[in-house]
């Protein structure tokens, strides 16, 4: 009984955590470059809708993944132009991006809602337990999650590009004086984050839900933003954050299924309570870890 609960929760945390991790990794890159993007939810939806559409048309979910990545990057161009080139308020621009994503995804997804799509091929790992046997479903995006984390960590911490990107996020004027191209780096960061969020949407649509439905990401874009702070802008800590949040959500559903005598409304709050509780813990240290110029439009000359 307890064994089933633990194994099943772990398996489900991977399924739910994978999309969160991709979105969080992307947001880490953007925020390290000084751009906070509150519109992740909209970008994820655009990715999910484009992924479903492309999969439905081509019959191949990998084209769907590619379409999702491109859609995520494409929709982020608007945001990048507003905040990087025009110096728009990042919070307002991010929220606009959210609503743009809601609208665009509804438009793209409309003909494909309810279409039968074949999701990403996956391998089922069964736990040798007596009950329904918890299943960990492993697909390509799950397999690539940790390598992607390593890549982001390496690129940010060990490459010249990463150093410059972080310099832009800490002190754009100094970075400019040192010869960094702020505009290009921030564009790269925002588009990369868009692509990652698109990928996150693709995982939800093609590997978890196997369908398109409006607003299907259910607020996970905002959770990813909270996870960035929880992880203190560190890609490896984001893995832990994504698993913990995904696990909390899975656990409450498992507890309901197991018949625990607790209100389902209380249990539905659990993951969010956990997120809220975790954020103050990272409070002071979090403020120190935050990129110094995060959210500030660059006003210097270039």
């Amino acid at each position: 009984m307890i064994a089933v609960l633990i194994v099943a929760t772990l398996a489900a945390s991977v399924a739910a955590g994978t999309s969160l991790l991709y979105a969080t990794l992307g947001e880490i890159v953007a925020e390290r470059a000084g751009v906070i993007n509150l519109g992740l939810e909209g970008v994820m939806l655009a990715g999910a809708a484009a992924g479903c559409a492309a999969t439905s048309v081509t019959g191949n979910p990998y084209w769907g993944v590619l379409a999702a990545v491109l859609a995520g990057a494409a929709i982020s161009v608007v945001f990048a132009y507003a905040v990087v080139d025009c110096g728009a308020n990042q919070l307002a621009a991010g929220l606009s991006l959210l609503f743009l994503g809601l609208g665009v995804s509804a438009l793209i997804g409309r003909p494909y809602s309810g279409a039968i799509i074949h999701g990403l091929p996956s391998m089922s790992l069964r736990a040798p337990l007596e009950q329904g046997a918890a299943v960990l479903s492993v697909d390509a995006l799950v397999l690539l999650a940790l390598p992607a984390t390593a890549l982001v960590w390496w690129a940010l911490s060990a490459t010249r590009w990463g150093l410059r990107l972080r310099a832009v996020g800490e002190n754009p004027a100094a970075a400019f004086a040192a010869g960094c191209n702020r505009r290009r780096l921030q564009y790269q960061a925002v588009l990369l984050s868009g692509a990652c969020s698109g990928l996150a949407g693709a995982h939800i649509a093609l590997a978890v839900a196997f369908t398109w439905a409006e607003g299907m990401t259910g607020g996970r874009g905002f959770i990813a933003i909270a996870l960035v702070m929880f992880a203190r802008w560190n890609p490896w800590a984001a893995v832990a954050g994504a698993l913990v949040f995904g696990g909390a959500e899975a656990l409450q559903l498992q507890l309901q299924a197991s018949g625990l005598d607790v209100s389902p409304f209380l249990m539905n709050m659990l993951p969010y309570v956990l997120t809220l509780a975790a954020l103050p813990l990272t409070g002071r240290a979090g403020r120190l870890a935050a990129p110094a110029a995060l959210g500030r439009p660059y006003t210097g000359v270039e």
Partner: protein
Amino acid sequence: MNAMRTLSCILAFFALPLAGPALAQDKPALTVGVIYIGNANDYGYNRAMKDGVEEMRKNVPGLKVLEAENVPETAESERVMSAMIAQGAKLIMATSFGHQEFAERLARSRPEVSFVHAGGWMLRPNFGTFFGATQTAWYVSGVAAGLMSKAGKAGFVAGVPIGYVIGNVNAFELGARSVNPKFQTRVVVTGGWSDKVKEAAAANALIDQGADVLTMHVDSPATVIQIAENRGVYSIGFQSIEARQLAPKGWITGLGFNWGPYMTETARQVIAGTFKGSMVRQGLAEKMMVVAPFGDSVPQPVRDAVHAAADKVAGGFTPFTGPLKDNSGAIQIYTGKTMDNSQMGQFNWYVEGVIGRVR
């Protein structure tokens, strides 16, 4: 699917002048405006409404249908309906619960237009309400689950546990218990009608906990049914019977709404000038609720038993007949008492055998 529909539309367009003098006139016999809350191709609630509209269109010659999808349950819906009336609509069908107050307000100022609304309670001479008697019909799904399940455990993914949903769960469990007295229905509440990641995790959790039949009351059944199919357990659908295409192996049966006959009749009444707003709640007897075709895996004796249960319900049987205990053991309906269709929104307790809490 879509291509076929487009093709048939084009064919119908060219066939129109051939259909005789009755159709040759420019002015349609009646213009109907229909608003949907979501996408009409969702394999769920909206799809069922759309299928009903298509049947009405086929049955009533000279009908012109204006449709609007994704109409929110806000004042926006009133604007959409007004625009339809401006285009000549004399009958408005507002198909989502939350469209009610806006349609009713419009009905007050437009007495020459007839309105019907799905699932509400408001009534006016030109404003009627219709819905399927879903709860008693769920009893039949329960019988099917009870006979097919080897584990004697079903999983029920519920969006939000409002009274009507609880009633559906209860009837399902009572149906299953009628053939397997130890049957359990485990309920997982996701807290929303369309949070697909949670629906997926809930479906998996129920299977992990030993359920070998899954059913659901959420907007679109697509995710739950596909997860059941992928993990090799049975599924029972709700709202649109077309969902069976999602589970060729595990589909048992399901309940669908069949709005066509009611919509056809309403359109004819409006044309004849005899429409009067009334409350219509029909179930299996009137064929407003239908039992979906069976999946290939369902053996003949089970099919016979399910048909027999459907006939019993159509004949007036209600599963909510006392004595009935809730799942804490307290008696909720005393011997000799029953709950009828108008009380289904009042459920705030699960019957014995349901694992879950309502609040």
